[in-house]
């Protein structure tokens, strides 16, 4: 479904990704782990079109989407919950969810998806009229995830969805990822919580200073000594 072919991404003079190749198949959950600054978020931004690789190609459902504007890729079925949540603090919870469905027309479908999101995260329902900026960090994280689902994506990118969440809510997030997978949506996940993430994934990639150093089935990645040492604290 998604293929990165040898992409190089720069921020000005900073060379953030060096020849990253990666594949996500239809229906899979794939986790990307790596130290701070390894280039995980950069990889996701390159997929969404927020960044354009200087070299290499991004393929989505067989089409070359390199260089296509981010807002157009949403229409093709790519959605992201960005790092640091990125909720619109000046909009209400409801308006944030509406923005997630910006390109959709069918009001009944939107309403039913909104209901689903609010059932998933009942906290949001209680705060539906509140400005998103007044939510707690964890509530904002739930909102970011619910909002990303409002476009009914084929491919959902999640950048550290469990960051700063209480253990119970973390479980909700991972259970939600299982649900999303069950509905046929493909997920590319970036997580610091490598152990939990790999448990809920089919495959994993490890990034180090802008390059993939390891890839494989989730269980194999989790069992790799380097990963155990560096990311699982053993």
């Amino acid at each position, binding site marked *: 479904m998604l293929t990165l072919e040898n992409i190089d991404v720069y921020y000005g003079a900073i060379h953030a990704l060096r020849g990253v190749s990666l594949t996500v198949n239809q229906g899979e959950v794939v986790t990307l782990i790596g130290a701070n600054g390894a280039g995980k978020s950069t990889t996701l931004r390159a997929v*969404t*079109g*927020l960044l354009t690789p200087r070299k290499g190609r991004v393929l989505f459902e067989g089409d070359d989407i390199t260089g296509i*504007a*981010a*807002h157009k890729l*949403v*229409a093709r079925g790519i*959605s*992201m919950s*960005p790092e640091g949540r*990125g909720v*619109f*603090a*000046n*909009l209400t919870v409801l*308006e944030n969810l*509406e*923005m*997630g469905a*910006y*390109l959709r027309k069918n009001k009944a479908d939107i309403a039913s998806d909104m209901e689903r999101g609010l059932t998933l995260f009942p906290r949001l329902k209680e705060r539906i009229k509140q400005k998103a*900026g007044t939510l707690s960090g964890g509530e904002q994280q739930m909102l970011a995830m619910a*909002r990303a689902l409002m*476009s009914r994506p084929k491919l959902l990118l999640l950048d550290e969805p469990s960051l700063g969440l209480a253990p119970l809510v973390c479980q909700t997030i991972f259970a939600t990822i299982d649900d999303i997978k069950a509905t046929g949506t493909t997920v590319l996940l970036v997580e610091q919580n490598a152990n939990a993430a790999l448990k809920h994934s089919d495959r994993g990639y490890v990034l180090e200073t802008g390059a993939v150093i390891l890839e494989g089935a989730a269980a194999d990645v989790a069992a790799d000594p380097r990963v155990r040492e560096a990311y699982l604290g053993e």
Partner: protein
Amino acid sequence: MELFFQQVINGLSLGAIYALIALGYTMVYGVLRLINFAHGDVYMLGAFAGYFIANAMNLDANPSILGAIVVTMGSMAICAAIGVIIERLAYRPVRQHSRLTSLITAIGVSLLLEYGGQVVFTANPRFFPQMIRSETYAIGKVQITNQSLLIIVVSIILMFGLEFIVHRTKIGKAMRATSHNLSVAKLMGINTNFVIAFTFALGSALAAAAGVMVALAIPKIDPLMGLMTGLKAFVAAVLGGIGSIPGAMLGGMIIGLMETWIGATSYSTYRDAVAFGVLILVLLIRPSGIMGSTAAEKV
């Protein structure tokens, strides 16, 4: 007491003009973090557009309210288009560059409109056609002209319209989302280039309405008329908290009232200095402005 009410009415009608123009500064700042210095000149172009439309309709000889509405709407439409063109040709090409580059570009566009305006329209002031005959009503000893009444009423209608667009429509919500976080707005599927162009159109249309109403009241227009008014409206936007829509409305009213009040005292020669004194004070005491705290709604 009568004098007080007189000053309040004069101040409100002047303040409404500043508020209308300040809205354009503040909205563009909201989505682009750009001080659009050419905005005051769009107000001037609004007055000129109104002048040509009104003359083409021969409204000086046959004044009519309907005609005045057509002139105002026409001028608003023309300036909306001019605003979009300015954004497209001048600001979008430098958007990825530093903010200093955008700022210098804005000053350049402003100078181009002011001096280009003198070439095209000549520097001589022109008399704006009296498309509505001037009348003065007296309430007790308080005098109010139909023009200042018109300015207050029309401004209130336009501001309510703007509030409606920004809070109740899809494009308005997209504007607020874009102003909060441009790249996340893109991730929602929002065409942020369109939203930015729409913001310029909206702000320029409000400035055009202000230009026509001032031209009708004064009634003299010239290519440099946007310079001082634009600067004062900019101060109003900073005072209210740049980026904040209610702040721009409030800031405009405050500057208008203060200026009128000073104008009625023996310090009246300093009336133009008021705005700049306020600017210095705001920057010293509260640079974020009255409503520009993080809690304020930014657009």
